[in-house]
């Protein structure tokens, strides 16, 4: 598997002097194509900062960010914008879709921003929505979609084109558990098709959808789950009681 995202000794300090806040201390992270990684930690642990730095929305104070093997440091605002619309998709907790644009138009937006003609971009967006089981919602506006549907359209927008990296910050935070599950199913499916995914959450259920869970506390990566294991191991522990 190729490594899509790599953070090397990334640190982030907000402010300066005595009021400086260290959000991240030398955090390392590698995510391969086709892998869904959850970053889990309590609020204020620096997990959202990790995500925004990985997504080039913020610059790290120290360390390196490589996306598809290319360093993101020192890129101009325009080059970062280009990197985002070509390689990185975001899904946030809420307010993901632009009102006034239909689901198809929302999904087509990153392509159009990249210079793909309207017709081609829309055709591609419809196909992506279809792949994620949202074909019947293509013409709807965000106001007419349920919360779960909105997040699923947001995922479609995050993976449309040939995106390599999908970054999600509490994508099910505003949803009930069944809608959350539907969103996570789509997210997982997207990763199974070859995208590297990172989900940031404090929710154990949400994290358990990942192939690998990274634990972060006070800006440091403290632990990591073992690779997926079979059910027999669990049975020995008698958790079923």
């Amino acid at each position: 598997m190729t490594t899509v995202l790599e953070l090397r000794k990334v640190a982030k300090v907000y402010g300066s002097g005595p009021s400086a806040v260290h959000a991240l201390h030398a955090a390392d992270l590698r995510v391969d194509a086709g892998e869904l990684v959850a970053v889990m930690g309590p609020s204020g642990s620096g997990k959202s900062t990790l995500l925004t730095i990985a997504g080039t929305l913020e610059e790290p104070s120290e360390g390196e960010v490589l996306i598809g093997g290319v360093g993101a440091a020192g890129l101009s605002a325009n080059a970062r914008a280009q990197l985002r619309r070509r390689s990185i998709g975001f899904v946030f907790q809420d307010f993901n879709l632009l009102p006034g644009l239909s689901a198809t138009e929302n999904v087509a937006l990153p392509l159009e921003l990249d210079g793909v003609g309207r017709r081609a971009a829309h055709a591609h967006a419809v196909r992506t929505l279809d792949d994620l089981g949202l074909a019947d919602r293509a013409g709807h506006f965000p106001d007419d979609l349920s919360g779960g549907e909105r997040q699923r359209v947001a995922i479609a927008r995050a993976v449309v084109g040939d995106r390599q990296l999908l970054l999600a910050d509490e994508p099910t935070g505003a949803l009930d558990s069944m809608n959350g599950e539907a969103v996570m199913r789509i997210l997982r499916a997207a990763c199974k098709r070859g995208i590297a995914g990172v989900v940031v959450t404090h929710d154990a259920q949400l994290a358990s959808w990942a192939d690998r869970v990274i634990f972060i506390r006070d800006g440091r990566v403290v632990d990591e789950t073992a690779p997926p294991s079979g059910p027999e191991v669990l049975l020995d522990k008698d958790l079923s009681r």
Partner: protein
Amino acid sequence: MSVRHALLALLTEGPEYGLRLRQEFESRTGDVWPLNVGQVYTTLQRLEREGWVESDDAGSDGAKKRYRITDGGATELDRWLRTPPDATTPPRDELVIKVQVAVRMPGVDVHDLIQTHRRQLIEAMQHYTHLKADAPADDIGLALVVDAELFRLEGLVRWLDAAGVRLAKLPRAAAPRPGVPAPDPAQVRA
């Protein structure tokens, strides 16, 4: 989970052979609650003794017998469905005891211990979630059981989170001992 009542419930769908009953039971609960081979037949014998089921012939092998629910059995099943689960006396939770013990023991980093348990719990949850994710969407039975486990495990993770926050408020030296009243938080802070 009461295996007896689960078997009674299966029989409400119609008479069934003992072997099929076992397969049905396992497929509905997935491999979350695997049963011993003999457990189904022992339970069926007991049900028959109490007059809640009856069998076709008196053959010795439970697997080949065909069982049918009686009126008494239907009444018992209905009574059981409506009886609230025992929620008043909490089960003695092993995890709680382990953390309690670790707090008292010198030389044990309780936060490390909590994280270890958290990781293991999450790993368990990952297993169940993947089970649910890979299962066909119409396998409601599996989903119900897996959800139950997931919510239970999530509860434990959340308890660990809360415990971690509570213990972080106390200086490690002043960890409470059983029988010793917890120090006043104000004094601790001072």
